[in-house]
């Protein structure tokens, strides 16, 4: 990373020393899920955190390894609707532009200041998810910028660096991004057909070679031996429509219905997130 203008931290991982504390209970075996398979983690959502933006929201999801410690922290700000730059062609509807950026310190592997391909990828998925929810032709000739910074990236500090595949973390991050962006859009007063929320489901294999793969919602990679497949879904509950579906992994060919059940679990996770979202929005206007 040839970024000479800023003082960069060391490129490698910097893990602060963890001292043995007698009072804290010993970590349980890290490879067990601490929740029932169909329960999502607790979520905190608040709108109106950035005064200078047209709309903003903040999302926190707890990590389940140590209760009370946050795993995912997202901050979203929406700027606009505002006029398009003069170079842009005429657009009869609103032009969405989404930016997702990990803070340099959000993950164990330090991120650069410029967006890398995985962050661009998240932005594209987010845009697809939101475009299905926005009533774009209410705002002709205008653009809106949706900027999400991932302050903390939902990575368990105790797990080793090489263990987790980053893609599964990205799915959890995308689910949160969709939910927080929907809250910020509603706060900004941009017309939406529905509140869109993101949910993640995965097919996991727990310890033991012969164990049967199970479908869980809201997976944490550090809690499972192996994640075989996962999908992240953006879902509109009152319309019963899916606006974005991101599927990754290999499914055993023996079970045809596995794909459907995975998507259904993803929708269920998204409905859970939506309940938080609606509650938060109702609180905002009261």
């Amino acid at each position, binding site marked *: 990373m040839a970024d000479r203008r800023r003082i960069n931290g060391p490129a490698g991982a910097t893990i602060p020393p963890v001292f043995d504390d007698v009072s804290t209970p010993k970590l349980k075996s890290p490879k067990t899920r601490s929740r029932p398979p169909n329960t999502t983690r607790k979520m905190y959502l608040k709108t109106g955190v950035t005064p200078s933006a047209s709309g903003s929201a903040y999302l926190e999801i707890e990590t389940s390894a140590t209760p009370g410690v946050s795993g995912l922290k997202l901050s979203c700000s929406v700027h606009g609707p505002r006029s398009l730059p003069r170079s842009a062609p*005429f*657009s009869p509807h609103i032009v969405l532009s989404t930016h997702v950026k990990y803070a340099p310190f959000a993950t164990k592997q330090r991120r650069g200041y410029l967006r890398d391909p995985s962050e661009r990828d998240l932005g594209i998925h987010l845009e697809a998810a939101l475009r299905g929810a926005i009533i774009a032709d209410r705002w002709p000739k205008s653009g809106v910028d949706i900027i999400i910074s991932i302050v903390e990236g939902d990575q368990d500090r105790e797990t080793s660096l090489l263990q987790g595949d980053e893609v599964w973390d990205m799915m959890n991050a995308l689910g949160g991004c969709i939910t927080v962006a929907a809250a910020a859009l*509603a706060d900004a007063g941009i*017309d*939406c057909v529905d509140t869109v929320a993101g949910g993640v489901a995965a097919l996991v294999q727990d310890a033991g070679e012969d164990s049967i793969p199970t479908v869980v919602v809201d997976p944490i990679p550090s809690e499972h031996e192996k994640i075989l497949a996962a999908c992240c879904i953006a879902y*509109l509950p*009152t*319309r019963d429509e899916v606006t974005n579906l991101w599927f990754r992994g290999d499914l055993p060919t023996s079970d045809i219905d596995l794909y459907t059940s995975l998507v259904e679990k993803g929708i269920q996770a998204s409905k859970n997130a939506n309940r938080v979202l609606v509650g938060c929005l109702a609180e*905002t*206007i009261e």
Partner: protein
Amino acid sequence: MTTTTTTTAPPTLAVPGQLLGPASRYQPGPGTHLHNANLYASLLGHVHITQPAQQPQQRQRAPGPAKRLTKITPAPAPAPTPPAELPTISVAVAEVRSSRVPAAGAGAGAAVASGGGGGERKKREVLPEVGNVVLCRVVRITPRQAVVAILVCGDSVLEAEWQGLIRVQDVRATEKDRVRIYESFRPGDVVRAEVISLGDQANYYLSTTRNELGVVLAVSEAGNTMQPVSWKEFRDPETGAMELRKVAQPQPQ
């Protein structure tokens, strides 16, 4: 249609996607959308129900000889309310919001709106739409067009600055071929105009082809605010010099 869900009153607060009622009972207003013959909220805010006005009189055109059709104009806006006269349901962030009271004068209406919504967090952003009357300031003129910055749309001051264009053929309705831009507008004038098109990538297209549209505020070359004296002239009260403009007919407050 007589199930409990459809006969209950609509909610007072709405989040996007919330069901407000069947389309047979309400008309969609701002902040709502229609889906499968039902009305849903599309914004976060308070639900307002506006009863239809008592037979809103079609605004009479200024008296004068009937104009010949010289251009193809969009059909007059469909009757504001269908024969059924349904109440309009709308969703807005602000709790108090005078939703386009037609009787109130522009100044009075704006004062009421800002007074009521003063404590609110912020007003919703608005965009100029086709048919809106806007106030704008002339930025520069060329022989073919005047470039303006749109400042006010209806009763609301715009946050973003939008650029507009008054082409030479849209300055007045008659004798279009004799119109000269520099005899109609000067940079710095405040103009009341109507939006006729969303235009191209950068500009809204505006028109002043009505008597009540045109320059409302002009400053003379000497730097004094001028008074309108005829449909095409302003006079400087101090020097007495006349300047040519496309003058807007003064409107009774």
